[in-house]
């Protein structure tokens, strides 16, 4: 399938994937304008596939409007110890976008007053923000019902200074949500880098040791599965059963729920789709699996996403595409929930990723 040009692309780009972000490599796709051109052009411009706005209009779901706010998702920075091939954040060790303490203070003010019942910290590896622990301690005091930290697991084993994270999380009753693409070593390492599987297993065992993920334990440990390639996730319940069986039998690991998340065509996953000549087929698969039921519960309808620099977005994906909320209130320092709730949610063709099949959100399927 690959002609010489693509082979060259593979050699020059794919092999460096494991160490640098698109941004550090000055790739065109590091620019959001280029990503938006791709998502709005090609097969959508030619009419081969329908625009997302036209698709949701078929069932009178346009414009997309928020429902009562449930989740405040805060991205505390794009720095990460891993450079996963599918990352929609284009995160990595070379990313310097880190939330400042001042912005965190502004977030805390909002956390203390929000109507949302869930606080969801993400990154990058959120633990790499130098003020992470202080922020968690302060946020935990606000008494939010469900306090999630999205941890990539390997960070817990990356450096001695992180070894006590399981105890730290337990002390603040943090709900851990971690990615593990597969229960076999090969598939995990291929997506996330060599050695990631073994470190992840070790980290899961450490989390189990302090009570995380154990049957009946209030210390919640959920796993995120996202496909390692150009295909959609299968049935969430079936995958959960397979993960539970394999992790228990092979490593004596316990966890609570598995969230199956669809990869959205953004940043490094978009780069992968194009380089592997899967982009058009993948978008067709997303459009074919479009489920109007999923649109009703898509996460942008109950979430506000806060960027590392305090700007507000409808979701983490819109954040990565630079699509700030369509509201007078656009920054955390000016936050007013009532004003923000009265807005139209911004959409593009990447949104098909959240409405395919049983739907997809940071909390797994939605339909």
């Amino acid at each position, binding site marked *: 399938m690959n002609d010489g040009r693509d082979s060259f692309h593979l050699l020059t780009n794919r092999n460096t994937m494991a160490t640098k972000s698109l941004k550090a490599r000055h790739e065109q796709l590091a620019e959001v304008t280029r990503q938006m051109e791709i998502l709005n052009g090609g097969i959508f411009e030619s009419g081969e596939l329908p625009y997302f706005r036209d698709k949701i209009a078929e069932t009178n779901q346009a414009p997309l409007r928020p429902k009562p706010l449930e989740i405040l998702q805060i991205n505390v920075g794009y720095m990460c110890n891993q450079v996963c091939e599918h990352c929609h954040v284009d995160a990595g060790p070379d990313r310097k976008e880190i939330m400042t303490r001042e912005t965190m203070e502004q977030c805390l003010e909002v956390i203390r007053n929000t109507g949302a019942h869930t606080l969801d910290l993400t990154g990058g590896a959120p633990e790499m923000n130098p003020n992470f622990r202080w922020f968690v301690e302060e946020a935990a005091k606000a008494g939010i019902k469900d306090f999630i930290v999205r941890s990539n697991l390997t960070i817990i084993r990356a450096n001695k200074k992180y070894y006590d994270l399981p105890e730290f999380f337990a002390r603040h009753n943090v709900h851990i949500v971690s990615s593990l693409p*597969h229960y076999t070593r090969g598939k995990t390492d291929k997506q996330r880098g060599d050695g990631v599987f073994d470190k992840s297993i070790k980290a899961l065992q450490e989390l189990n040791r302090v009570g995380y993920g154990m049957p009946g334990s209030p210390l919640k440990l959920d796993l995120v599965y996202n496909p390692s390639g150009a295909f959609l996730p299968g*049935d969430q319940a079936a*995958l959960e059963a397979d993960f539970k069986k394999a992790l228990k039998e092979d490593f004596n690991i316990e966890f609570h729920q598995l969230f199956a998340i669809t990869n959205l065509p953004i940043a490094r996953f978009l780069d992968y789709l194009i380089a592997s000549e899967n982009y058009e087929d993948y978008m067709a698969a997303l459009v074919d699996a479009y489920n109007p039921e999923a649109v009703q519960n898509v996460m942008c309808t109950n979430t506000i996403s806060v960027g590392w620099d305090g700007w507000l977005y409808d979701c983490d994906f819109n954040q990565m595409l630079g699509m700030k909320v369509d509201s007078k209130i656009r920054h955390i320092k000016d936050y007013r929930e009532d004003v923000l709730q009265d807005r139209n949610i911004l959409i593009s063709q990447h949104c098909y990723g959240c409405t395919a099949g049983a739907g997809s959100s940071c909390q797994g399927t939605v339909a």
Partner: protein
Amino acid sequence: MASDYYNPADLRKFGKITEWSEELGTRFFDYYGKVFEEGALSAREKSLIALAVAHVVKCPYCIDAYTKDGLQRGITKEEMMEAVHAGAAIESGATLVHGVQMMNKYNKLSM
């Protein structure tokens, strides 16, 4: 007309066969859908059977479809290849068992 007998893009158009014979097409797709539901066999097991049969009947559309289906279900490449071997073994066995007929005939005709 396309210059090839098989075009990967045609798989997406499979559902269109219903347009030229609605009743039969609909009955087929209902049946097909029902067959692959969770039953006495799991949907995962049926996916592997489908993959093996896809190879035996040498259907490129089915191979594409059930390789993708297997990936979606988290089926590993080792499991997929073993399923293909199971199909191939039966197919080669089906050839080789005729060797007995050859031997019978040989013996009957020989003094």
